[in-house]
């Protein structure tokens, strides 16, 4: 845990930021986006680095969570006690249903299948004309916490996101250290050996996939509230790719690398987009260069692995 001084410092900084003058609408929106994506990225890092499941469809679980909020909003249900479990539950179910098939495969097959399922979710969302279809859906209001408009308070929302991020990280870390996590980590390196000690890899991978989906759903719930707008773009495969990039940018071996990765990514993307219209011309090659040269990611730069 000593190695985690950097992400802990980052979380602390995020906590202090609004009090240190970064409490305006622009800054908190930016930080919210970074924290929400960071949460999803940590869950993905858990999957990729912990279980060896490289999912190219993780944005779908965020999207399912976000759309749960939108759909319930369209029908007048805005109470968090209902909406939050619905969002997390829907995303978990989606992950378990698609994972039941995807997790039977490994390697490239798995990557492609998760990509395909993500697309399936994307097209389904695009065809939901009642909830905006291609154009997306604007929420009537943010989710109410026990009848209050707590989430509309900028500061409160900021700390809720921060709390959720910290929770996601802690949960993922705890899972990886547990008996369950030990099996996952062993399956990542040597599934044959796991079978040979009497454990079937499939249920463990499936549960991991479901949990990551649930955390994604939580991120989706918060995202819908942050932007008060939900659209199929949330589920696009480009978003899934961006999430993977955050994981690799941060460094695959460390869960908290994903938090750094998300932060850097969001800041970079925002800054670049303000500099030039065709910022992707720069961003794309930056991705390529980062992959080619930044092995071990940012986490690897800060705390080099021993041995």
């Amino acid at each position, binding site marked *: 845990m000593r190695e985690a001084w950097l992400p802990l410092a980052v979380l602390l900084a995020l906590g202090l930021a609004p009090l240190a003058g970064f409490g305006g609408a622009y800054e908190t929106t930016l930080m919210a986006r970074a924290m929400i994506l960071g949460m999803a990225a940590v869950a993905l890092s858990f999957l990729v680095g912990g279980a060896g499941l490289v999912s190219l469809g993780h944005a779908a679980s965020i999207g399912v969570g976000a759309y749960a909020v939108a759909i319930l909003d369209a029908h007048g249900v805005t109470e968090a006690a209902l909406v939050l479990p619905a969002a997390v539950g829907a995303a978990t179910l989606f992950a378990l249903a698609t994972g039941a098939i995807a997790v039977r495969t490994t390697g490239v097959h798995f990557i492609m299948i998760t990509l395909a399922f993500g697309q399936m979710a994307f097209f389904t969302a695009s065809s939901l004309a009642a909830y905006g279809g291609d154009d997306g859906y604007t929420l009537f209001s943010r989710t109410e916490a026990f009848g209050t408009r707590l989430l509309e308070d900028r500061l409160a929302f900021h700390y809720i996101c921060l709390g959720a991020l910290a929770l996601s990280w802690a949960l993922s870390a*705890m*899972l990886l*250290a*547990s*008996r*369950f*996590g*030990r*099996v996952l*980590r*062993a399956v990542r*390196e*040597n599934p*044959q*050996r*796991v*079978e*040979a*000690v*009497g*454990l*079937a890899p499939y*249920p*463990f991978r499936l*549960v991991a996939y479901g949990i990551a989906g649930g955390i994604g759903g939580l991120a989706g719930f918060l995202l819908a509230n942050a932007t008060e707008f939900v659209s199929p773009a949330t589920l696009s495969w480009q978003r899934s790719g961006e999430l993977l990039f955050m994981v690799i940018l941060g460094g695959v071996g460390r869960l908290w690398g994903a938090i750094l990765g998300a932060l850097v990514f969001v800041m970079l993307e925002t800054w670049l987009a303000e500099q030039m219209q065709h910022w992707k011309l720069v961003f794309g090659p930056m991705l390529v260069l980062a992959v080619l040269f930044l092995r071990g990611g940012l986490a690897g730069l800060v705390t080099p692995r021993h*041995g």
Partner: protein
Amino acid sequence: MAEPLLRLDALRKHYGGLAVTDGVSLDVLPGEIHAVIGPNGAGKTTLIHEITGLVAPDSGRIVFAGQDITRLSIPRRVRAGLARSFQITSVVPGFTALENVALAAQARAGCSFRFLRPAASEAALNEAAVAALAEVGLADRAAIPAGALSHGEKRALELAIALATRPRLLLLDEPLAGAGPEETERLIALLTRLKSAYTILLVEHDMQAVFALADRVSVLVYGRVIATGTVEAIRTNPEVRAAYLGEDEA
């Protein structure tokens, strides 16, 4: 005659037109070391795959401790008490030797769907792991990542992992493959120590080890068992000499 712990009943497996396992029947009695020998291409590897569950035989039965395991999955067979070591060592390279064995102990010790407690802090698992490592002489290498162990140490680790699953039958797949003379001596000594506590099915090429350790030997040639008997009986069996021991490896 005691009830066999493992009974193979006319196992058959063919690939295309070739019968790789051609009606193999053999018994492993509790407490014995039963060696299976045979020339290359005899079908030893396929037989191991059939016993452990990687390959399903086309016909025949496998009965383990009175239970028909012919259709059971690999993990289920291991849980029933049938552990194996791999010829090409198969460990988790990023885990320490201790954690490799603790994984096996954990698999034995009940539910792995525990999400809260750090597994590394579970004293019972660690103790069981240390005990198994001590049995194979690796106690002082417990904290070394398995990937960094020497080839011989990895082989010993394989054994420790198998032991930690508290097996009723140990299936050893050419444990001496590629071992130098010193290591062979050490492994034979280790296996002699284990002999009293475990039933072992030993698939081996090394005749020195086989004749030193085995209670009974079955000779596999072209997918069939041509003879089963004590070491002496096999050594003097004319069919066996013609088919196999003529290419003397002792």
